[in-house]
């Protein structure tokens, strides 16, 4: 897909397209997540299946102590299966704000994935280059009733492949709280997507979460049973 998109796109269309490109109707990914802290770091490997925006299920394949753990998202619910104790737990509201698996993302972030399209109004505010690629710079403002904590979000989306290369999350007082940067774009099937994403809490020194996509496939057929709480213990 190259430049001449004859119709001028609205900001919302751009964001929507960018969101859909990384999702497909279904997707399967194998990722390596590294949690970086000032005094330690931890690596995890996961397999992630998703269907649309409402369903996704992640299986932890390493490290050994956490192997076999499964996180299931069904619409607004999050379930967690832990093989060592053979239990499935539905996360209560008090857990939603806790960090997911020790990373810098919360359980709530897992649930609100297409929030950037649905909960905000979008405006193009310029063009800039990020990692050498031409990008639209967009400003996202939360809609009146949207249950999101941010005051505004600034997003850089590349014009060629609609990759979200940089996102800045601001609080209501316009202080930068979180930052997301994506790089090392690769071809995954017939899509080009960044293979490395870093999620950085700005005022916590030496702290970040790095997600690396090793395998990423789209639009394959995934049975619906994968996204049920009963199947969690059978996921491989």
């Amino acid at each position, binding site marked *: 897909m190259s430049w001449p998109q004859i119709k001028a796109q609205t900001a919302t269309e751009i964001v929507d397209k960018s969101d859909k490109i990384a999702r497909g109707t279904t997707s399967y990914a194998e990722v390596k997540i590294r949690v970086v802290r000032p005094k330690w770091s931890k690596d995890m490997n996961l397999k992630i299946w998703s269907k649309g925006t409402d369903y996704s299920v992640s299986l932890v394949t390493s490290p050994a102590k956490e192997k076999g753990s499964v996180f299931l998202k069904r619409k*607004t619910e999050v379930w967690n299966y832990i093989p060592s104790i053979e239990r499935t737990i539905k996360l209560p509201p*008090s857990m*939603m704000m806790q960090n997911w698996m020790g990373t810098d993302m919360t359980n709530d972030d897992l649930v609100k994935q297409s929030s950037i399209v649905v909960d905000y109004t979008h405006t193009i505010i310029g063009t800039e280059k990020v990692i050498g690629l031409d990008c639209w710079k967009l400003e996202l403002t939360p809609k009146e*009733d949207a*249950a*999101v904590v941010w005051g505004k979000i600034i997003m850089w989306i590349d014009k060629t492949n609609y990759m979200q290369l940089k996102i800045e999350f601001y609080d209501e007082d316009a202080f930068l709280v979180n930052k997301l940067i994506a790089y090392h774009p690769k071809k995954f099937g017939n899509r080009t997507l960044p293979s490395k994403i870093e999620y950085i809490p700005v005022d916590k020194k030496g702290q970040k979460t790095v997600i690396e996509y090793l395998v990423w496939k789209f639009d394959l057929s995934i049975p619906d049973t994968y996204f049920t709480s009963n199947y969690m213990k059978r996921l491989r």
Partner: protein
Amino acid sequence: MKTLIKIAWRNVWRNKLRSSLVILSIVLGIWAGLFLMAMTLGLNEQRMNGAVDTYLSHLQIHHPKFKEDLNIKDTIIDKKQTVAIIQKNTNIKAFAERIVVQGMIANSKGSKGIELLGIRPEQEKKLTSISTHLTEGTYFTKFKKNPAVIGEKLAKKLHLKIRSKVVVTLQDYNGNLTAALFRVEGIFKTNSSVFDESTVFVRASDLDKSIAMHGKIHEIAILGKSIGDVKKIKSALISKITNNKVESWNEISPELGYAQEMMSSMVFIFMGIVLLALAFSIINTMLMAVIERKKELGMLMAVGMNKKRLFSMISLETLFIAMIATPIGMLLSYWSISYFNKYGIDLSIIASGLESLGIGSRVYTYLPKNLYINITATTLLVAFLASVFPARRALKLRPAEAIRSN
């Protein structure tokens, strides 16, 4: 008898310094004792009133199982009928319906577990005083969309200001996770920092929509015309409301009631000790007076004053002193207690400790009127009893010896 009174009276004033001393000590004893009592009672009164005024009210009604597990589904059974019964009771001044749920409040700075109260502002205003305890902002009068009124301690914790956004995550009536956005419209401060940190008020209509309550509520709080009516109201309601649980404030927060009783008994013990000390002071001084006047008393006896008269004279002297001192002590107490009742004593040095106990940093002294009368009567009684000992001592004097003594 009249002469006796005159003599006794003049005897009192013969040694001005000594008598003034005794009077002064009685006055101070009474004043100090009463003031301390007033301070203690005031302290506890405030704590009680604070809790009652801000959220407890005089009575509360819940589903019988609600208080145990705080289950969202344990709503008030037959709300319409219950409200109708309440409205018919003439001793009830106001009542308010509330939705009570536990949830998490979050913003970009952090999150905290809270109790969310969905209220009807017009009802709550008549019932509790939070609407008048706002340090900033307004009480559900300005914002149209999802306003929230939060406590100062919570605002500080999450760096919230008026107009700040907060996201509240909770489970709805059907057990599904849901989140809703609210904006801070007002910030309140009560005497209890614990309450301020964990309670958030929103409109019942807004909350109902978010969690699909469909008009159901968890709590009805009731204010009687006066706190003395609570027992009456409770029995009247219990006889008519059989499916929900009716509780009075001291059943919901028994610590408040007990603390009051405990403080009262401690203060009485103290007062007892003060009176004991006073008694000794009086006995001491009057005894000295008798010994000092040995010669004179001996003479009186020799001249014909009988024992009964002598006894009465000494007793009267003591009583006169007490009767002068007591009203002065009472008056001094009354004035000082009334003054501090109005303006309060500043205890900000230990403010944070007090606030965690639910007491404000200003203490308003308070003493029920009947205590003034009680203490006056008791002091006079003690003085009279104290006078017995010196008077008896006087009786033991032998006139012949006494006259010759120096």
